[in-house]
Structures are given as structure tokens and as C-alpha cells.
């Protein structure tokens, strides 16, 4: 199990895990539960530059389309083929096999929330 207390969060409901200079990005359980069953993901391509706070993809549920915001600046090194093939992993394992993509970063930007800050934001 991922220890969610070690993650950083955006107000747009992405989570970030930093391992060395690689940031793994996913959607929070709160986001997944709000969206309903995720049926399609549009993720940034490997090699693409993403910019913190900018839209870098889309997540479609049965009932809605939402944008994915890059939580960090950097170059995408990997996308999660498993979640592209089975988007429902976002619902079932948002912090494990439901991760979305990885980005090579210099550092995490200021302004990301810690778990307590994010939980306060979503009223949990």
C-alpha cells in the first residue's frame, strides 16, 4: 500500500510521489469517487514537456470529462499502459496501479499540498 502521507497534492486532485528526480502522478481517491467510473484517459506523450498548473490530459468517466493538470514541470518519461488499457484502475487503485504518468523533475514546485492540507481542502 502506498503511504499517502508521503504524497504531495494539487488542489485539482492530482497526487505526486517523488523518487529521486522522477515524479509519479496520479488522481486522488476523492477525484476518482467524484468522477465515477473512469472509462478513458488522454495522457501526455512520453518526451512531452509538462508545466505545473497547465492542462496536460483528460479523464473521462461515464458521466463527465475533466482535465488533468500537471502538478510539476518536466519531461514525461513514462505513461502507465496498464491504466490506459484499464482506466477503471483509477477507481480501484488510485494510489497504486492506477498511477498515470512519470515526469523527470528538478524539484517539486512550491504550493503543493501535504496530505493534511489536501484533506482539509476536500473536507475529509
Amino acid at each position, binding site marked *: 500500500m502506498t503511504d499517502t502521507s508521503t504524497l504531495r497534492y494539487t488542489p485539482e486532485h492530482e497526487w505526486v510521489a517523488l523518487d529521486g528526480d522522477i515524479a509519479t502522478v496520479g488522481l486522488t481517491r476523492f477525484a476518482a*469517487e*467524484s468522477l*465515477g*467510473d473512469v*472509462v*478513458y484517459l*488522454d495522457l501526455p506523450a512520453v518526451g512531452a514537456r509538462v508545466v505545473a498548473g497547465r492542462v496536460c490530459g*483528460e479523464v*473521462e*468517466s*461515464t*458521466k463527465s*470529462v475533466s482535465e488533468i493538470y500537471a502538478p510539476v514541470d518536466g519531461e514525461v518519461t513514462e505513461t502507465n499502459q496498464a491504466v490506459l488499457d484499464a*482506466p*477503471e484502475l483509477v*477507481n480501484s487503485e488510485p494510489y497504486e496501479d492506477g498511477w498515470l504518468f512519470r515526469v523527470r523533475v528538478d524539484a517539486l514546485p512550491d504550493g503543493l499540498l501535504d496530505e493534511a492540507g489536501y484533506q482539509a481542502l476536500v473536507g475529509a
Partner: protein
Amino acid sequence: MNPRTSPLQAEHEALGAVFTDFGGWSMPVRYGSDLAEHHAVRTAAGLFDVSHMAEFRVTGPDAAAFLDAALTLDASAMRVGRAKYALALTEAGGIIDDLIVYRLGIEEYLVVANAGNRAPVAAALAARLEHHAARLADETDDTALIAVQGPAAERIVGATAGLDVPRLADIAFYACARGDFDGVSALVARTGYTGEDGFEILLPAASAPAAWRALLAADAALVPCGLAARDTLRLEAGMPLYGHELRINLQPAQAGLARALPLTTKLADFVGRAAVTAGPPTGSRVLVGLVSEGRRAGREGYPVRDASGAEVGVVTSGALSPTLGHPIAMAYVDPGAGPELLIDVRGSLLPARVTPLPFLPRGEQRGTR
């Protein structure tokens, strides 16, 4: 204004429902997985709270003549114990709402309207009541409506403790019968909004929580379902939803509802008859079904384009069909557009082919029942 809550609100909360505002009501959008809820209705059965729908009871010697004049329905020609789909129109032939009307007696009808159209339907009916010896009562606040939909619906309703419906199996599609739940009168109708066999049970609000619990206890296969599943189910079944496929500035023929107009058989005049007999202006857009490949769906408001890129229509509802596994959409398009079209999905053009509605045949025809 705070949204209204159903008499089943506490049941929904106990089941962990996620709520959404719909037609002025706070109603469950899903209890768990909306896809699992959808599949339950196609393969077994789902339980829906549709108490947000509006109910009007019409009684009196002129009840039939009043509804003949007020709605597209040939109310006089209905047999007692039958249900009919009908429209309330403006003089210009625009759709005020789509309705289900039940004939409960020679001088008694029940009109079920969409939640969001309660006020306009009430106003239209009240205005058209003049000079008729009939009474119109809005019973929405005292009434609960519970739907059991799916191939196992008859088995489950028949096995529900306290729910007594004489000759349940003999209730035909679009027919209804009086039953009772724990000594309280209930109306049980073989109608629904999912494209499956099933029942809608109308009973006093105070009896609804016990009936809801009794239905759930009757069979573990019965899955509580929210509005998300209700929407994808009705979309697969090609059924229009007011505010999406039906609007006050659209005529029935544009929405593919010419069949709901008994123009050749109904003698009585009704509001909008002249306009719908003349039909919509030449060139008016018409409702079509669109199917695509892949997983990305056209959504409400997305433009529909032809091969040249010209906008020829707009999507009114769309989703990745849970049953079919590919995207489906309904759209208003210029007459003659297609069959090969493009849905403008936020800048990328998704090929889509015009297809007859419904996308999915009724359950009975697919052999699920």
C-alpha cells in the same frame, strides 16, 4: 434554493450514495460503481428511486375529454389499466414535457411528468382545465416512485415481502394494476426508462422506505442504481431526455416522436395539433443516433461536422456505451446529413456513423427475459 430530497433520502445515505442535483432535487447519482449498476440492470435487476418525478391525478366526468384536449394522448380511447407515452405541447407544437399517463378508472388518470418540468406541466394543465368538469391534483409531495428494472424484475417484485400484486405476471408492457404494500394501496406498472422489462411502483411517501428495504431484502441480485446508470441505460435504449433531446423549441417530429402523435386516429383537437400536423419548418434539424469506435465519447454540446468540416449538428447526449463497449451519442443534425459524420471532441474529429435508434434492442428482444 436548496434542492428537495426524496422520501428515501435516509435509505440512500445508509447505502453510501453520492448525490447530484437534478431537476431541483438532490438524488443519488451512484451508490458505488455506475458501470456495475448499469450492468446489473441489463443482466439481473436494478432498484431506482425516481420520486423526483411529478405526479398529477386527474379525476371527474370530463377527465378523459380534458386530457384529450390538453395532451397529444387519445385519452378517451385508453382502456382502464393501460399506460401511454404522451406529450404536452405549446400551440406552436413545441414540447413542454414528455409524460406517461396511466388510466386508473373511467374517470381517473395519473400523469407522470419530469421533475424539472413540474411547474410548466402544472401550469399548462391548469390553464387547459377550464370549462372541464375535472379536478387536477399535484400529488408529487406525497408520492414516492420506485422502479425495479431488469430481466429479474418480475421475480423480485413477486418475491417482495409485504408487496401484494394480483396476477403480477399478467401485467402487460405499458399496463398497470393496483396492489398493496403492507395494507397501503400501491400502483404497479410495467413501465420504465431503461430498455429492460421492469416495474414502476407508485405509493405514498410514508410507505416508501419500508417498501425500498423490502425490495432490497427480497433478492441479493437487486442493485440500487443512481441517475448515472439511469442515463446510460436510457441512452442505449434510444430514449430522449427532456432538456437534452426534447426542448420547448423543438417539435415532436424532429425528435423522432411522430409515433407519439395519434394524428390519424384521434378525433379530438388538442393544443398544438395544427402546428404538429403542419410539421416543423423545412430544413429543421432531426434527432439521429451516432456510433463511433474507440472509447472517447461525444458529449452534450459538441459540434457535429461533415467531411468538409462544416458544422451540421450538435450532440445532445453521449457516453461510452457500457453494454456495447463503443461510444454512442444522440445529436440534432441537418436533414440528410450523414451517414458518415465527425464529432468535434474538443478539437479532434471523431468519426461517427448515423445509426437507427435504439442502439440496443429491448431486453425482451435480446432474450434476457
